[in-house]
């Protein structure tokens, strides 16, 4: 009788943690300037600023940590949205969070407001506000008479996404070339930051959101069988849906506000892990946190090293990987994946 055991889960998560730590050590050594592991760590503080350790600790490590947090957020919320909407094609961006965030971002660029909030410039603050605004609007439309219908949620979310995209075009139209250039660049999704401020400001949202999601992991299994079955097996369906929708939206919105919409992470990682580990969310959810982190760390390292003398936004790389990956899934495992 095959089923998920605690032992298997611990084993898999230990392996993924090891891979994560390995990526954290090795990825910063790779790039336009190759670093030597010894040179980075043998340096003692008394000798003043060393180039190798400066690049490692001040340029590449904060960026890598941001990649880890964004990757973990997008992959985990992908898993959750696929369970919540009972749809394997759902992603963190299906319900308009990315479009809402992008609308905030392009408005910030167009208005050029020179303020900072908690050390953050107007752009991420506007993007986060836009994402939360989208979540609130979709929630208010979908919520009716204390019930929270999956199909209404999907329709409301997809409609909101289209509407925000239309508004983004409107802002484009009223912007000059420099601004539209900046906007398009932001919407490609990139992680080019140079200090620890971005990953640190993401951290509280990430911790709160993932804590709440792990709390409903087992309930998400039963949602896969439908609301009625889940409720008759003792799941408080309305509460689980609300917690998972709001928490997944929170970590997605926070991630998008720092990195722009990096597409396909929330699809590739959940599906790859589901094929390898099975659909049980008690393992799939924590595994997708670690797997998503590793995936985006490696992708971003590749994106900033692949072109000589230039750093490609990682969003372009993940988007290019996404299409072929899905064709491969449909051809090989489609039957098991989408019934």
């Amino acid at each position, binding site marked *: *009788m*095959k*089923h*998920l*055991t*605690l032992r298997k*889960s611990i084993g898999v998560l230990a392996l993924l943690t090891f891979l994560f730590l390995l990526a954290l050590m090795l990825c910063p050594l790779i790039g336009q300037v190759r670093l030597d592991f010894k040179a980075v760590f043998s340096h003692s503080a008394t000798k003043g600023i060393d180039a190798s350790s400066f690049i490692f600790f001040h340029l590449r490590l904060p960026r890598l940590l941001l990649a880890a947090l964004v990757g973990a957020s997008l992959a985990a919320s992908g898993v959750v949205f*696929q*369970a919540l909407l*009972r*749809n*394997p094609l759902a992603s963190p961006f299906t319900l308009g969070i990315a479009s809402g965030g992008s609308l905030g971002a392009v408005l910030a660029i167009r208005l050029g407001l020179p303020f900072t909030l908690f050390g953050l410039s107007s752009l991420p603050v506007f993007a986060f506000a836009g994402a939360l605004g989208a979540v609130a609007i979709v929630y208010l439309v979908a919520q009716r008479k204390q019930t929270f219908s999956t199909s209404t949620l999907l329709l409301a979310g997809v409609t909101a996404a289209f509407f925000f995209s239309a508004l983004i075009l409107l802002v484009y139209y009223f912007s000059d070339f420099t601004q539209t250039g900046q906007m398009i660049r932001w919407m490609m999704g990139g992680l080019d930051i140079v200090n620890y401020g971005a990953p640190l400001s993401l951290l509280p949202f990430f911790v709160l959101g993932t804590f709440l999601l*792990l*709390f*409903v*992991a*087992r309930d998400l*299994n*039963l949602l*896969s*069988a*439908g609301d*009625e*079955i889940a*409720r*008759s*097996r*003792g*799941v*408080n369906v309305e509460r689980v849906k609300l917690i998972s929708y709001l928490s997944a939206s929170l970590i997605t919105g926070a991630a998008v506000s720092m990195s722009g919409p990096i597409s396909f992470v929330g699809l590739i990682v959940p599906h790859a892990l*589901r094929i390898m580990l*099975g*659909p*049980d969310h*008690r393992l799939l959810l924590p595994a997708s946190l670690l797997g998503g982190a590793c995936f985006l760390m490696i992708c971003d390292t590749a994106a900033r090293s692949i072109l000589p003398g230039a750093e490609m936004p990682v969003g372009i790389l993940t988007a290019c990987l996404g299409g072929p990956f899905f064709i491969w899934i449909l051809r090989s495992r489609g039957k*098991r*994946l989408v*019934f």
Partner: protein
Amino acid sequence: MTNSIIELKKACFAYDGKPVLNDLSFSIQRGEFLGVIGPNGAGKTTLLRLLCRLLSPSSGQILLKRRPITKLSTTQIAQTISLVPQEFNMVYPFRVSEVVLMGRHPYLGGTLTFERDKDLNIARQAMKRTDCLYLADKYFNELSGGEKQRVIIASALAQSPSILLLDEPTSNLDIKHQVLIYQLLQELQQADGLTVVSVTHDLNLASIFADRLLLLKNGRKVKLARPKEVLKQKELEKVYETNLLVGKRTGSKTTYVLPDPKPKLKK
């Protein structure tokens, strides 16, 4: 009555102001096999949903083991009543064993908790009872209709309920599998003392296996009695609005009901 496990007291249910169930008062006995019959739209499925609190009555009261069902937690209800729906599919590739183990959900508590040996044993027993242990490692969605139905019942049994509610459990099955499912339900009722409430359109199987039948029409109770008292030709024809042939099976005392349509066009 002293031995009732579920008691309805003037229970009503309205959907968007439109009454679906009216003034239902009756009780279900501990360990009985109750068949719920009636034409489409009579409120049979709604009644089933009220009994496991997927819906709450708009007025009146439902007592589960003499306590108002509204006062019980979702977990408490799940530990007493389990529901077998007409059909369901898993969106993701869960195995049969995992689907059956989901029945243990109300007993696991906490989050990220895993099934203990006791839970695995109960699930294995449930699969043995329903003859689907050999399917354990298969993917649920790849099973045939009859296999799925047995797995769904196994998953409901893994909940260790005292009441099993079924919504047309045999509507997608051929005659052989219909009989097998009903024989299984009877065995669970007689050997394990389970209370079985089954909504069905199959008057013949209901007449053979049920202890009592509840006949509903337009959300009202028409009759609640033993099958041979409920399955009377005149009354049934009135309720179902069609001509019927009702008779006694030779050799046994059970009643059979056949459609007896009058030809619409005369040559």
